[in-house]
């Protein structure tokens, strides 16, 4: 009898020891990571598994040491990217990073054109958007399924063939000027937008990117609903049709050019609010949501460094670092929590409408054609075709 008790005691102690050792491991986290956790008020053991997560084939580490600068094209602001990179740089000081901001799809196109002319101008590229299919056709992307943390991403947030991985969740809802509108005024469902007079008379602004939000709604609520909704939106509500970028619209919103704007991204709206602007965020149901893609160019010279980076990026630490950088909600399946979503009360718990790549192929052309008509008649003139 006592022997069994002893066994249980030992097992208990071992278990306890392991817990304690976990905390001990927490003490060996990079400084920047610790600061991050403190800032977000997250418990240390959120990163309990990090060392396992970051285990990679030895060849990658050795290979990365011999490579040059890792080139990354991303859409973040450089200072924000700096913040995000800090833990990576602490862990892998032998991988220097060259970062360029690459906003706009034509940048993706030019990278592809260069690739076809045998020039690989970057190792990691993000924000592929619609040009993904061209990349696939040109066989320009690496298969990333061999990256350990690839599996951290939920289904639907990675390419089945491993050519792209989702970096973060992205919600496209409404931002509004808190001086002009109150939370109570905001529509619970999208249909409510059509009936509230507060959004008429040009108080509402619409940006020219229907694929960010209307596409997901079309899929979720069906074609007849979508067509009807959009038609009424343009003809009855008569919003201001703005050609500026979505982020620029936020700036104008803060300045008072209009009272609300659609679509607005959660991370950017949050940043503006933190700056002190009278801006807040609201999501009618269903909530349009998508993932942003990241890929590695095939034949990238710094392939090992790239794999190291992507692996780290998809780990819990990387995803948290991203959130600290620019408030982009993680895509990691274990990090779906309120603390890591800006305006969580707006988003968490609501029904969402997910935009998956299949949707893009079949519905997008129809949506764009329909939208263009409305935009044109609404006085916005052709979108650019």
């Amino acid at each position: 009898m006592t022997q069994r008790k002893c066994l249980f005691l030992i097992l208990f102690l071992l278990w306890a020891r392991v817990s304690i050792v976990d905390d001990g491991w927490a003490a060996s986290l990079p400084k920047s990571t610790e600061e991050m956790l403190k800032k977000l008020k997250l418990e240390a053991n959120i990163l309990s598994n990090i060392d396992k997560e970051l285990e990679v084939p030895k060849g990658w580490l050795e290979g990365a040491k011999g490579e040059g600068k890792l080139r990354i094209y991303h859409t973040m602001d450089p200072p924000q990217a700096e913040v995000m990179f800090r833990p990576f740089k602490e862990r892998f000081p032998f991988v220097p990073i060259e970062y360029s901001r690459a906003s706009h799809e034509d940048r993706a196109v030019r990278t592809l054109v260069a690739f076809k002319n045998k020039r690989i101008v970057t190792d990691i590229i993000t924000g592929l958007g619609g040009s993904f299919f061209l990349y696939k056709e040109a066989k320009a992307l690496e298969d990333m399924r061999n990256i350990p943390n690839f599996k951290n991403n939920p289904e639907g947030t990675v390419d089945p063939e491993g050519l792209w991985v989702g970096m973060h969740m992205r919600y496209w809802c409404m931002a509004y000027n808190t001086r002009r509108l109150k939370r109570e005024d905001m529509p619970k469902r999208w249909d409510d937008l059509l009936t509230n007079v507060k959004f008429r008379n040009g108080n509402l602004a619409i940006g020219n990117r229907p694929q960010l939000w209307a596409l997901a709604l079309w899929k979720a609520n069906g074609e007849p609903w979508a067509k009807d909704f959009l038609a009424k939106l343009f003809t009855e509500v008569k919003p201001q049709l703005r050609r500026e970028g979505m982020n620029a619209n936020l700036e104008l919103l803060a300045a008072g050019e209009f009272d609300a704007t659609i679509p607005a991204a959660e991370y950017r709206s949050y940043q503006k609010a933190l700056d002190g602007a009278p801006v807040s965020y609201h999501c009618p149901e269903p909530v349009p949501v998508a993932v942003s893609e990241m890929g590695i160019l095939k034949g990238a010279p710094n392939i090992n460094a790239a794999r190291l980076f992507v692996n780290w990026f998809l780990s819990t630490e990387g995803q948290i670092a991203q959130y600290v950088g620019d408030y982009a909600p993680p895509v990691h399946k274990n990090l779906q929590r309120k603390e890591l979503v800006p305006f969580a009360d707006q988003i968490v718990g609501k029904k969402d409408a997910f935009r998956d790549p299949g949707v893009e192929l079949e519905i997008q052309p129809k949506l764009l054609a329909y939208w263009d008509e409305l935009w044109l008649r609404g006085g916005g003139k052709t979108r650019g075709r």
Partner: protein
Amino acid sequence: MWVASRPLVWHSGIFLLVLVLVLVPLIFLVLGSFSTARLPGDFSLDTMGWINYVKVYTDPGTYELFTNTLVYVGGSSLFGISLAVTLAWLVERTNLPVKLWIYAGVPMTLAAPGMLQAMAWVLLLSPRIGLINKWLQDLFGLEHPPINVYSLGGMIFLEGLRLVPTAFLMLVPLMRSMDPALEEAAAVSGARPLSIIRKISLRLLAPGLVAVMIYQLMTALEVFEIPGVLGLPAGIYVFSTKIYAIVRSATFMPVYGQANALAMVYLLMAVVTTYFYARMISRSEKYTIITGKGYRPRQLNLGKWRYPAVILVFLYLFLAILLPFAVFVYASFLSYVQTPSLEAFKGMTLKNYRLLAEYGEVGAALKNTILMVAVTATATVFLSFLVSLVVVRSKFWGRKLLDQLAFVPHAIPGIVMGIAFFWVFLKIDFLPIYGTVWAMAIGFTVSFLSYGTRSMNASLLQIHKELEEAAYVSGAPPWRTLWRVFLPLMLPTFVGVWIWVVLHAVRIAGMPLMLYEGPQNQVLSILIWNMWDEGYVPAVAAIGTLLMLTLLLLTLVVRYVGFRQQFMQAPNV
């Protein structure tokens, strides 16, 4: 130039160089317009077709474009040139007291990046948040905001203001070289000053004036920053913004082929306008008496009209420089854009400037910009000078053609040139140009060649042939003559063109955006554009303020020195 067999070789060399530099993007423009392939580089014979043309020219929207564009371009050119003529005339032909202000101040308008100016005016005259509107409404108790800057009128006004400096720079030498005897003859025949101006002076100036107007018309046609910022929200499209929109399409693929097809209109216009421009210029030369003995054109005494004239000058400077500048300075201290109020002032911060100092990107962009701009300006001066020498002073068979070739790129929008060069540099990958600041420098040099050659042509014509011949008979071979006679006499023109190119290369974003590949060739204009696009208006205002200050200082110094030197020297020989 003394013509013998050897000089002909370098003439042909220059001709060939310019031919290549100008024709290559044009060929791409034409070929690309037939390409139905998705990507600009995927050009092959079986993807050729007329479909781009069909799509673009059967779209009724395109024809609306024509009307808008016509009104916008015509209106802004008229407004801008009228203002420029008035200012140039006040400086050169009257006894206006504040000449230095005009002389130095007018070119300074070039220092402000286009979209920043537009943005400043949005903050002033937007129907919803415009400061001036609010103030006027308060003052007069109006219900609706009186001025809407998002209109054709707004676009015309602002673009007109922006056309003034270059037109001014081209008109001043024209005014200066008028023979006073022609006007004096009218005076003694009994004509009053206003009548003289109308019947004699303006008529003599007319061909030169028309030439300048054609030139600025082409400028107005191709810039897209003003119509982009002010026109797009109002849904007013003009050609340049339409092409930009096609290239930056919000759909998944920019359709480059269609952009090129639309841009063919520009090519057509380039040919037509170049033809008329050349005719105007040659007529203008006949009317301009090159005063070998340097008679100073007589100065009109303004008398009591002095005060309104001075007010006009300062009004222009205020609207074109001071007001927008004040707006960005204000905006650069904000966290987010808001109209001026007690709260706004309380919330002012140095954050944006601090960010700039910390931003590694800014430092790199600055270095790249300085390098690129210096190289471009120098190359433009050098190449324009050589081209002008051939055009004005040699008997080379192709010199008229060369002159026209140098002029054509002015008509092609920067974006289109950018796409063309992007493709070209990719293809010639044995030369390490792709993705570097050299790519932008080359692209810009070709674009600015038109201004450089206009300026150098006019200046070279002023140098009497005998000054050159005297050097030859004194024993100086051609290259020594160049060094000892031409260069010193052309120095003011060189400096003028150099500064002009610097001011333009620093702030134009269209072409660099197409050639931008990463931190190694990111320049300030791209940085500003990206940040503006991302909505970081206060940060953009901060960069814009610093940029403007630097450029203003540079311009002021150069103009001051040039101005003094000009008045110290005896009349030009």
